Structures are given as C-alpha cells and as structure tokens.
C-alpha cells in the first residue's frame, strides 16, 4: 500500500480513528476497571482476550489494545489516590501526594488533577511521537546499561528526599527496600540469593504483592484503628463537594501546563528505552519535580505538583513504549510484546517495513492513542465526582474489601497462593513501618528500582570484564552523572539561597 504521509493523511487518519469510537469507548471502560484492580493489567487482560483479538480485523484489534492500555494506565491512579492502592507499579509514586489529598477530603479534585495531567501528558507525548518517531527511536541506541544506571540513581535518590524529615529512618527504610529487592537469582549466573528456600522467590520479590502489601494492606490496618480514612471535618468537605471541585482540578492542572509538559516528556523519553517502564518514569519525574520545586518540603503532604508529575510521566510512557516496536520492531514492554504477536499473527510487519507497507497502521496506532486520550477526557472526567465518594464508605466495610481485593490482586499475576501470603507479610511490614515512623515509600522505591539498578550495573560490569570505570566511559553517561550531582546538590543550594534572601528581607 503506497500512501503519501502529509497533513491531509494525518487529518484523514484522525477522523478515521474517531469513527472507531465504538471500539475505543468500551475498551476505555474495560481498561479503567483492569487498571484500577491491583494485579490486573492491560497486558494480562489482552492475553486473556487474545483469541478474540485474533478474530478481529487487525486495525480494530490494535485500536482495542491501545485504548485498553491507555485507560488501564490512567485507571491505576484511581485507587492509588482514593485508598492508597496503586493498581500497578507505574502508579506507585501517585499515592505519595494523591492519597494525602484524598485524606484531606480533596479526593475529587485529586482525581480531576490526575485525569487531566494523564490526558494532557498522553495527548502531548502521542502528538510528539507521531511527528518525531524516527528520531525518538534512536534514544535506545544511546541509552545503554551505563546510562540506565544513572537514570536508576535519579529514581533511587528519591529515598534521600523522602528521608529528608528523618534521615536515619528514611535511609534505613530505603536500604531495607534495596535488600528486599536483591532477593532472587542474580542476573548473571542465576545463583539464588536470600530466597530462604522458596522457589517462588527465585525470580525476585514479585512487585504487586510488595506494592499492595506495603501501601494498601498496611493502610487498611491503620484505618481499622482510626475508624476513618479522614478526619470528621473532612468528611463534610467530601459530602458538600460538587462539580466545581472537578473544574477546580482542571483549572489547577491547566495552570501548571509547563509542569505537565516536561514531566510527561520524561515519561516519553524513558518509555522509548526498551525494557524501561512507567515505574522508573514516574519516580524519576517525581524526583525531578521535587528537586526543581519552590516548595519541596510540601511534597508528600498532598502537593499538587507531586501528583501531576508521576501521572503525566506514566502516561507519557504509553506512547514511548510503542515507538521501539513500531519503528525498530522490538517491543518496549509487555503490552507492546503482545501487540507484536497480534501483528505477526495477522501478517503485519513491524519495524521500518510497517511504515513503508502499512503507514495507515503504523501511524494509526499512535492516532488511535491520541483519540483514546481525547475520548477519555469526555468519558472519565465527569466520573471523578462519583468515584471520590468511595472515601466516604465506612472503614468497617472498606478495610475488609481492600484486604480482599488486594489479596486477590496479588494472586492474579502468577496465580501463586504464596503471593497472597507475601502481600499479607508486606502489609505487616508496612504497618510496623508506619507505626514506628519509617516511610513505606522509601522501602518500595528500593524494592522496585533496586533490582533494575543491579541488572543494569551488572550488565555494564560484565561487558567491561568487571572494570568499574565503565560507569564513566560514555559521554552521555558522564553528562547524566553531572546532571544527577547537580540535581542532588540543587535543593541544598536553593534552600541556602532562599534563607539568605529571607534574612536580607
């Protein structure tokens, strides 16, 4: 199929994708549900529905998967904000500021902020991807193991930020998380470490049980004690909330358009790197957002920008992760890998040949993503008012529901009973950490990013025959090291600067 790729082509493609609303809208709702339930994800839902996808026309099948994927990414933020349960690892940074907002009775506003930043982040990065795909795909050619070690350190340095209020406890929690993250077979010789004889831990500590245990189950234990998600005066705020809260959330987010823009771009660039994902992007975006903020001390207490950053970033990843698949023929993540299977099944090539033979499909995938985000603005935003009412449900009912849902969610990805026990164990660890003033987020950052850091570090060392200087061997890597040092030093510098300015005035 020979086509001219010009403005008319893109306009035609846009309206063609809008015409597929009958696939997009049901997929959005399905995606929201599977994204919001911990343990379920776009990838495992698409696997379950794979036989149906094979029966569909290839274009319809791809649109279905794209809409499901985008909506699940957005949906994962809903329980993260309302009840402190991140649906996926990509939403793990969302509750850091989203949940405190919900506890202040601002759940509806928080959802609105989350939705708008996700949608704008998704629209913006998809539009950029459509135009700059061939160049963006080159990122993977420069971001190798050495560079990724530094990117991981950006995320892990967040432990220090989280630990700012109580350095010793924060660092202990972070190192504890890193230790848990090192459980499992090593990345080179596959020698099991710290598995305590459990085969289920050979591949490392599974993320979902750790995630839901540390955040959700421990929170459920806490609210059983306190009897409510929020103070009584805040309950009144939620009850009195009307549409204006949603509109306020939209306004707040739009007024921070630049923040949404650059944090979503972090997501796009990290998403393009094969194997990197939304969890890395959201933590790095959060860390960068905090570093350049004028009010870093407000992060973790319900700060708007602390919610915008991870949500814009993890939706920026969605477009990025498809670029290596479409342009190079290598899937950037689990969902992209399944899309590749479907495309192969239908005889559609991936990589450069796709854009030569089927540009309507190559560009169409990104246009479908664009249309999905547009339609999500119309369908999801109005729901924030009703969703936020979840926080009014009595903890007598909510706590057991949360525990039951999260335990089932822990079981789903691998279908091991062991994972349910593990989630419960993490719940107890999280509960003890909260009661004794250790930050569960610091533990989780270690659990999520620690294994990735180790993997890239060991790979770089293996390639250099164990020479540690390899970590400083690439110009791009060295630039990233410099930026890392600067961003770590910047908060202290800014603090000093502000103190000086304050004392002068």
């Amino acid at each position: 199929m020979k086509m001219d790729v010009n403005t008319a082509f893109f306009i035609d493609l846009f309206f063609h994708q809008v015409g597929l609303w009958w696939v997009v809208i049901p997929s959005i709702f399905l995606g929201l549900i599977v994204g919001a339930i911990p343990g379920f994800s776009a990838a495992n839902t698409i696997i379950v529905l794979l036989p149906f996808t094979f029966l569909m026309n290839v274009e319809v099948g791809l649109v279905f998967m794209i809409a499901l994927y985008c909506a699940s990414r957005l949906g994962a933020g809903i329980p993260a904000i309302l009840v402190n349960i991140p649906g996926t690892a990509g939403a793990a940074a969302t509750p850091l500021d989203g949940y405190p907002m919900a506890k202040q009775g601002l759940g509806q506003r928080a959802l609105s902020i989350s939705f708008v930043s996700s949608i704008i982040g998704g629209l913006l990065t998809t539009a950029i991807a459509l135009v700059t795909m061939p160049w963006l795909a080159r990122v993977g050619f420069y971001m190798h193991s050495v560079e990724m070690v530094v990117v991981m350190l950006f995320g892990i340095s967040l432990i220090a930020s989280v630990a700012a209020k109580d350095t010793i406890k924060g660092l202990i929690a972070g190192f504890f998380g890193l230790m848990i993250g090192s459980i499992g077979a090593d990345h080179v010789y596959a020698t099991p470490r710290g598995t305590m004889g459990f085969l289920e831990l050979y591949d490392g500590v599974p993320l979902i049980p750790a995630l839901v245990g540390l955040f959700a189950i421990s929170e459920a234990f806490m609210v059983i004690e306190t009897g409510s998600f929020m103070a009584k005066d805040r309950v009144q705020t939620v009850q009195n909330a009307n549409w204006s809260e949603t509109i306020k959330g939209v306004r707040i987010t739009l007024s921070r358009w630049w923040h949404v823009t650059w944090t979503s771009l972090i997501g796009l660039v990290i998403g393009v790197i094969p194997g990197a994902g939304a969890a890395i992007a959201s933590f790095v975006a959060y860390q960068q957002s905090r570093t350049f903020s004028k009010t870093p001390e407000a992060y973790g207490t319900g700060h708007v920008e602390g919610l915008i950053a991870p949500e814009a970033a993890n939706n920026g990843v969605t477009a990025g992760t498809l670029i290596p698949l479409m342009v190079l023929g290598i899937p950037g993540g689990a969902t992209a890998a399944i899309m590749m299977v479907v495309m192969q099944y239908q005889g559609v090539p991936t990589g450069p040949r796709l854009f030569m033979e089927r540009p309507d499909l190559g560009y169409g995938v990104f246009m479908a993503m664009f249309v999905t985000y547009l339609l999500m603005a119309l369908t999801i935003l109005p729901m924030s008012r009703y969703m936020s009412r979840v926080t009014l449900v009595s903890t007598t009912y909510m706590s057991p529901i949360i525990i039951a849902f999260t335990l089932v969610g822990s079981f789903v990805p691998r279908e091991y009973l062991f994972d349910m026990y593990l989630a419960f164990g993490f719940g107890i660890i999280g509960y003890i950490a909260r009661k004794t003033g250790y930050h569960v987020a610091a533990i989780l950052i270690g659990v999520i990013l620690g294994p990735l850091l180790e993997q890239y570090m060991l790979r770089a060392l293996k390639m250099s025959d164990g020479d540690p200087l390899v970590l400083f061997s690439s110009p791009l890597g060295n630039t990233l090291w410099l930026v890392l040092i600067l961003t770590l030093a910047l908060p202290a510098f800014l603090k000093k600067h502000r103190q000086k300015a304050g004392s002068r005035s």
Partner: protein
Amino acid sequence: MTEIGIKRRSFLKTGAAAAGGLMLGGGLSSPAFAAYPDRNIDVIIPTAEGGGADRLFRAFSSIWKNYMNTNFEPGFFPGASGRVGYEVYMGKYEPDAYSLIFGNMGPEVLNWAVQKPTFNINDYLYFGRVDTDPGVVFVGAESKFQSIDDIIAEGKRRKLNVGTSRLAHPASIGILALGEHTGAQFNLVPLSGGKKTVAGAVTLEMDFCVLTSGSVIAAGDACRTLLVFNDENAAGDKLNNAPTMNQYFGTKLPPMFSARAFGIHKAAVDNHPDRFELLQKTFKQTFSDPGYKDAFLKTKGFWPYSNYGGVEECESFKSAMLELGERYRPFLAGK
C-alpha cells in the same frame, strides 16, 4: 410351591448375576481397574500463560485430546528459568500418568547442569518432542558486521560482547564452541530474556547476540542472521540464508536446539507401562494428523521446525545437553 421354588432359583440366579455385575461395575469404577484415562490430564507448563509454549501446547493438545479421549488441562508455573514448574511437577504431582510436563529440553536441561534441582533428573523423562528451534548468531540491522567472518576477524582482535538470553542456553554453548574452534574471543552477557536480547543487538549495545531463531525471525528486518547452530538452515531466507556452523567451519557440534517436549515421571512409566504406551502411541498419531498442521500454522508457527521425536531422540538430546552443560559448567556457573 414349584412356582415359588422356580422363583427362588431365578431370584438366586438373578441376584448372583446382579451381585457379580455390581462387583464388576464397582471394580471398573475404582481407579485400579479404570480405563485410562478416565479424567483430565494435567500438564504443567513452566513458562507464563500466553507465551510460545502455551500456544504450541494448545495447538498440539487440541488434536491429541481426540486420540486420548480426554482433555489436557494446563497449569502455568513460570519462574527461575523453568525451575519452578519442574519442582512443582516433581514434588506435588502423583506419578500416575495423569500429569505431564511440557518443557523446553534445551535451556531447562542445561539449567540442571549448572544448578542441580532438588529432585533426581533421571526421575523424569521426555517422551514427545514437538518442535526444534535452532540457535543462531545475529546482529542488528545497523551493525557493521555483515558476515560471520567479520565477527571472527574482529573477535581475534578484541573480546566481543555477545548478548544472550541467559548463560545456560544452547545458543550460548554454540558461541562458546565457535570461540574455541576459531580462537575468537567472546564475552557472554546475559540479557534476561529473548526480547531484551533482540533489543541488545538492534540498539548496538552488544557487538552481536545469540538466541533461538524463532525470536529472531519474529523481529523481521530489525535483525540479520549470520550463523545457524544446526546441521541445516531450514528457515532459509527467513534467516538470511545464513550458513550452519558445522557446514561452514567443519565442526561436529550437536544441534543447539530449543526443543519443546512432553515429559513424564519415570515412576509413572515403570508403574503404568500401558498408560505410557498409550501416551506415546497417541502422541505419534497426533503428529501425523493433518489437523495438527492446521492448528500449528494457526499459531503462526514455522512448520519446518515442527519436528517429531520419541523417547530415544529426547533422551539422547537430554544427555547431550547435560554433557555440554557439565563441560562448560565452570563458565556457565561462574565457578
């Protein structure tokens, strides 16, 4: 009275017949005398649902069930390079021929050579090989290496970084053997999975990579194959008509396959030879059923890789892998 007597006699006869029938019937329904199989057969798959093994299993069992008159019920136990599935199969399932394992004889058996499992590896045997997918040497489309000669020449000048899905993999053994034969120096770097290995080649992080050919074919134009670890290149132009190692270098390396096969407890074979015989017989019948080719092609499998093997072929391959694993053990285990 006569009438009653006749009745009594006929009653006794009928009663005896009924009792006999009941005993026989009861006996037939007891597990010891039941016709095999009288229930579903569990199949443990040591990889994740939705992957290549899952699709191949479903294609094969969709026909095999007709010959066995029962369904095959898959259970997925991914993790630790297949180790979890095998440990579950050997540790938790009765050796009664009502459970099988569907594994990959290449990497999974090599794994045993590197790290011993908790069970005796002779306590199970493979009896039905479904496919063979050879390992290949490949580069990214933008690589400067155009042929295997380029790689060997460069490998004699400096140590080349070679991406592999994991160290204990037939393709890793293949490249080590090539290095030994040619004097080229290779540094194997495990990239944890096929997708990442393809990415390692395409993004040029690695000088080149080794992997089973199915994943390389799937990557299309993004990769270029330079050598095949088999006696023939059955995929032809799908693998860029790359030469085979034995043909090009005159070596005698056994084929470095990823080979998926059904396995069974050795105790089940010993205790229920009739059941094992039925499994073997119907497995072979399935292979020659035209319906199987259709089912296989529907999975977008590459038909020339569909390759029947019985106990003999499987056991000889298993032994070859164990032998090679033992030979390269210090390298694969880092000891």
